[in-house]
């Protein structure tokens, strides 16, 4: 029995994206489809992610760069890169940036689904050695640190996950408000509540420095290493 995975398909070609999503959904996975790295950031929120299927040519941040960034914030995330480029250099570049598999278009449904299943099984079997720094467990909504662990609210998890996944671990205030769905209803002062709460919880689990650094007239930046389990 194939594991049920949380999968994101990042593909700018609409038809291919729709078909890929439908193909993976037909095998029992939970799949979202987005057209760019920026959209992925918005779509994920505090959802956990097991696998991402990403095209190389994307508007804005390209697929290889996205793979590298996701691997840094989600070390256990499976990454399948799909591209029309079939040169060895392209493949090696993608593997160096954290891709687990590199498939060349056109990819058959069977191959893609088999690759996703194989990667899912391997990720499930893989042990999770204790990591240094802090861990965000989105499934259990908990934050772990050197001094223990503490539960998180949905808002805490959303803010923290967004910062962990963001380029440079930095987001503008409006982006955080958008992640929380507060863009139209609340001002930036409202953000102080979840941010202050998160700082306290980081202290509880062993943070010695400010984990959420305020950037004047910009937003917030993560001040410590956090990975998403």
């Amino acid at each position, binding site marked *: 029995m194939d594991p049920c995975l949380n999968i994101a398909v990042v593909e700018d*070609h*609409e*038809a*291919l994206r*729709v*078909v890929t999503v*439908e193909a993976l959904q037909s095998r029992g996975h939970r799949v979202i489809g987005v057209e760019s790295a920026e959209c992925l950031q918005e779509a994920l929120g505090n959802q956990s992610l097991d696998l991402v299927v990403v095209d190389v040519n994307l*508007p*804005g941040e390209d697929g290889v760069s996205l793979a590298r960034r996701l691997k840094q914030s989600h070390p256990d995330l499976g990454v399948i890169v799909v591209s029309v480029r079939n040169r060895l250099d392209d493949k090696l570049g993608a593997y160096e940036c954290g891709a687990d598999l590199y498939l060349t278009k056109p990819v058959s*449904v069977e191959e893609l689904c088999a690759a996703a299943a194989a990667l899912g099984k391997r990720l499930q079997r893989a042990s999770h050695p204790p990591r240094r720094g802090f861990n965000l467990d989105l499934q259990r909504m908990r934050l772990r640190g050197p001094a223990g662990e503490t539960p998180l609210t949905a808002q805490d998890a959303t803010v923290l996950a967004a910062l962990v996944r963001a380029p440079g671990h930095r987001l503008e205030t409006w982006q955080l408000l958008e992640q929380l769905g507060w863009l139209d209803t609340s001002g930036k002062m409202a953000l102080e509540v979840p941010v202050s709460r998160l700082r306290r919880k980081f202290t509880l689990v062993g943070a010695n420095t400010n984990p959420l650094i305020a950037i004047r007239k910009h937003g917030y930046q993560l001040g410590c290493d956090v990975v998403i389990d």
Partner: protein
Amino acid sequence: MNRFPAGGAGILQSGTFSDPLAFYPYFKTLLVGLLLGVLLGAPASARDLVTSRAVLVDRDGDLDIQAVAGSELKDTGSILVGGYTDAVYWLRVTVRAPQDGGAFELRIRPTFLDEVALYEPDPARPGAWLRRVTGDRYVNPDRPATTLGFLMAPVREETTYFLRLKTTSSSLLVVQALGPADARADDLLRELTHALYLGVMLSMAVLALLGFINLRSRLAAVYLLYLATQTASFVALNGYLAHFLPAAHPHWGDTVTSILVMGSVATGVLFYRHLFRDYAASTLGLRVLDAFLLVSIAELCLMVMGQTRLALQINGTVVLLLSALAAVIAPTMRSGPERERRIIRGLVWLQAGALVIMMMPLLGLLASRVEWIVDAPLSQGTVAAAVMCAILHQRTRGLVEARRHAEMEMKMTHTLLEAERKRAAEQARFMDMLTHELKTPIAAVKMVFQLPDASESTRRYALTTLEDMDAVVERCRQLDLLQQGRFTPLREPCRVDDLLAEILVSCPAPNRLRLATGARCDVESDRHLLKIILGNLVDNALKYSAPGSEIDCRIERHEEDGQAHIRFSIENQPGPAGLPDPDQLFVKYYRSPHAHKYTGSGLGLYLVRHLTELLDVRLSYDQVHQRARFTLWIPA
């Protein structure tokens, strides 16, 4: 001893490489100067005090003055021409005293004679003779600047003198008796002429040097060597060397002059050797020229062995043979342009003729009462140099033309190569576009076929994708026709609104177009091409407008400056891709980074731009209230 300039070979490179013929006027001036020099160089006979000349050939050289004075001498002209001989020549000259009764100069030329003894009556002892000696082996502190000679004091109204000539060189002798003023004038004229010769030689050397620097021609280098030896021998032959030699070794001048004369002949041979080799002349002729070079070495050996007269005689013969041989070899030149070879052949023949005439007196083959014969051997080197200069000039022109031709060919090759590179780059861009734009939709369609339970919406996506792929292929076909120039506009009456209606029939969402049509939409244009233009604009608007938004389309008649147009405009609200970059909009294969949501080629608007140019239709793009608008002005 006798030496003379050799008819060698020379080269004159004219001008710089960038424009060698820019020196051509200078070259002509140089030749004119040379001719003037020759004319001036024929010295005015001045007011000669010699009233009669008679000659006696002493074949064994054992006669003394008393015997000669008692012998009968044969009247002769102003010039003694004896050639190369071991005989002694006695010349009796009768000189009238100057009108003022003062001193006069007995001037003897040429200056390269070894020994000329003067016998004059001893006023203290009637019947006795006083003897004085001059020549290039003797110290003559009071000799005239440009000739050999003696300062004489007349004893009576008319005095007879005897001159005894013994030389290893050609026995060529001119004797004049001039008063002091005439002698100074003669010296001055001769020095001016020599200065002009040297100036001409220097000018030719400069031209050759420029050519050598610019073209690195070996012929030019050899010509420079020839000019150097020729000029040095000219200076020596005209007696200037004697003024700079140590008094203890006056004979050095004789030796150096002989070596320089033979050297100038050798370098002349070398010049022709290079010239004929460059033009692929007869191999046999080149071998004979090689032999001449060996003869020059043999001449030096003869000099060392004390056979200077024989060496110089051989040297003179080599000059004559070289003239004849060059004239024979010249027609065998095979490479190079025919015109260039013809000119060089003519110059070689000209030089051969001049050399033969000028060398004959030295070899004793020509006697004349014309004094130029004495100066001819001296100036023939300059004439030879000038002719060689002309040859070199031709050669340089040929080389420059060849280089220009080569450069032009290289440029053409570069141009072709660049065009080929561009074509290859264009091909690569095309293949890149095609690969990316078709492989992605193919992947989508393939996956749909592999999904047995694909939803209806997914199947519609697949169908749309196939239509997009078909559009890409159609654009590529249109691009190919455009690039091959196979779109030939054919003017015919048609209506813009009818064409638009035909397009909308096959349009996937005709209901999104809000059409406003005026009356009289008739135009004279190519129906097929106009339909492609309109179709591409409609397709572009549908594909990149906001999903479901309306597209405004207007067709109206417009008069401007007496010219009627049908103005067609299509305006839409931009979709997720945003407004396009106006600077890149009509560039081949350009697609906005956010426009890859759908399959496309990036060729539609490129084709529109080029087809409108073909049809003389004005095309514009502007952004009005954050809406994209394309407008066509079609001549009505």
